[in-house]
């Protein structure tokens, strides 16, 4: 797991030459999705191949967000030779660039890689941002993602989500004997790492708040149970010692607890386990199926799904199990609730008219919106800024699954790059 530990390699960010903007002319409203993506020019950074690679990753990040349209470098009239000299803004206005990013990559004497960049408002003729990042050279992609995050945040006013990872289930083989392996990759699909060897099924992995621990379900030894995977040590450990199936794990916002489902005599109820003391508290006691627990970001409530009313629907209860009440009334069956990190919405899977869709609604069930239209879309997970979702899309006829992403507005639906078929994505928080 040494490669994963590299993530902890120190990354330094320093503000320099930062000029506060006089106007807020350059701005993208995230809530409007990609109606009109902002044209932005990102020439290759000075610094040879490394500089070109970093700029390439930044361009791909911003294009993928749907909020930006990076301009073709072939259209550029100017070549950036010195990032400390203000650009010729007129030459960038001619090609309709509203934003411009200039940067350089420098190999330092200590062997580390430093990247400086500046974000310019082409029409306002002002610098909006100037930062430098330093890291070991093999972490150059992380530097690029961090720069993308800073650009996104400066222009949209929302935190970025590019310097994040996805834990997911990699799928190979025919549907009747699907091999499923636990895997992690960067948010853009780069650097995939397989954590289990496929000799047993794994399902529904979820990160803890530091992105160092994964809770997931494993059929190792023919006993389906919730496990923890420590990315730093590579250690796997069964969470608790229960006589029957445990499944559907998800961390509490502070990472100290795991809400999960215990099956006993065919009945499934929701429990919460303290990760350190291993103390267990039962939250539901109903002969119905109760599963899919997800904490609100303030930890005061838990959304879950239950068929206690006759069909699978979404409920919300207090974190101690009291006051469980149904919130989904928008028709069809509704399950897999996941509370937005912003707290303002719950994403879920709606099963209606013979298909599965991803939807979002307020935590009280109001303002329901269906945001995808696949054959079988299920299991949403939120970007840490609460603006983008990933989910599993399965094609008809056992042809396998892929991870897709969509803005919470329902726009900008895209397939997420992954090594082969993939399912059950869970988004990490922003990596610290």
């Amino acid at each position: 797991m040494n490669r994963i530990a590299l993530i902890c390699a120190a990354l330094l960010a320093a503000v320099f030459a930062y000029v506060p903007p006089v106007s807020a002319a350059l701005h993208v409203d995230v809530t409007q999705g990609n109606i009109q993506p902002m044209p932005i020019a990102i020439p290759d950074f000075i610094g040879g191949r490394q500089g070109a690679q970093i700029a390439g990753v930044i361009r791909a990040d911003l294009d993928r967000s749907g909020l930006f349209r990076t301009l073709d470098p072939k259209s550029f009239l100017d070549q950036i030779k010195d990032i400390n000299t203000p650009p010729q803004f007129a030459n960038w206005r001619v090609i309709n660039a509203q934003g411009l990013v200039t940067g350089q990559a420098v190999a330092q004497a200590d062997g580390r890689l430093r990247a400086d960049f500046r974000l310019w408002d082409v029409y306002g003729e002002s610098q909006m941002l100037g930062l430098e990042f330093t890291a070991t050279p093999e972490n150059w992609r992380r530097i690029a993602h961090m720069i993308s995050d800073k650009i996104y945040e400066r222009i949209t006013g929302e935190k970025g989500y590019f310097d994040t990872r996805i834990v997911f289930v990699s799928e190979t083989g025919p549907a009747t004997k699907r091999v499923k392996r636990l895997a992690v990759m960067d948010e853009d699909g780069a650097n995939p790492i397989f954590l289990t060897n496929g000799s047993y099924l794994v399902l529904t992995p979820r990160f803890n708040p530091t992105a160092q621990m994964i809770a997931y379900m494993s059929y190792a030894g023919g006993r389906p149970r919730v496990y923890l995977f420590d990315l730093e040590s590579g250690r796997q450990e069964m969470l608790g010692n229960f006589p029957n199936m445990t499944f559907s794990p998800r961390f509490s916002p502070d990472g100290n607890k795991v809400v999960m489902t215990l099956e006993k005599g065919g009945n499934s109820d929701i429990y919460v386990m303290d990760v350190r003391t291993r103390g267990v508290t039962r939250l539901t006691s109903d002969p119905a199926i109760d599963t899919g627990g997800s904490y609100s970001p303030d930890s005061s409530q838990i959304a879950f799904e239950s068929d206690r009313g006759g069909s699978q629907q979404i409920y919300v209860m207090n974190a101690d199990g009291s006051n469980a009440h149904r919130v989904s009334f928008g028709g069809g069956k509704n399950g897999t609730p996941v509370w937005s990190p912003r707290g303002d919405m719950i994403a879920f899977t709606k099963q209606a008219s013979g298909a599965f869709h991803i939807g979002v609604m307020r935590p009280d069930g109001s303002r329901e919106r269906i945001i995808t239209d696949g054959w079988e879309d299920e299991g949403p997970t939120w970007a840490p800024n609460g603006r983008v979702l990933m989910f599993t899309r399965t094609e008809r006829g056992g042809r396998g699954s892929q991870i897709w992403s969509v803005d919470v507005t329902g726009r900008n639906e895209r397939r997420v790059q992954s090594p082969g078929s993939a399912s059950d994505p869970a988004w990490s928080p922003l990596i610290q």
Partner: protein
Amino acid sequence: MRFPTDLKLVVAAAIVALVGCTTKPPPATEAPPAGPPPGAGETGPVTESNIIPGSAEDLRVNVGDTVHFEYDRYQLRDEDRNVLQRQAGWLQKYPQVRVTVEGHCDERGTREYNLALGARRANAVKEYLVSLGVSSGRVDTISYGKERPVCTQSSEDCWAQNRRGVTTVTSGAASS
């Protein structure tokens, strides 16, 4: 629209008979043998195509290891109770055998809900076997949710085949 279990047994037996043609045709039984075959467990297998009484194959082919469920249901149907009655009789005949009942679902449910539904189905099979006198300690359950379909098309025919409870031998069966 679903495949009747009894018909499946006949087909399975017919396939076994065909396969066995080049060696020694086994009896095309569609019900468990009336009594223990002479010399069972003493002479051992004569040919590979013979089904050893008390073996996992015996349960699968001659008794019937699978029952099916309606969409989003886990209640047993009358025709499937017959299959489970034969299973209970077989388990009483071979008291050293332990089994695991697998609960499976079709793809028309979310992953975690289907894990819970599969557990309900496996447990419904177990409870019925226990009600027929099989010791509870001999029957384990496991849910595979929608993870192990036998039929991969997205059609009602396939979904009906995938909504199933399968009794599999864990230990104690005669080996072939």
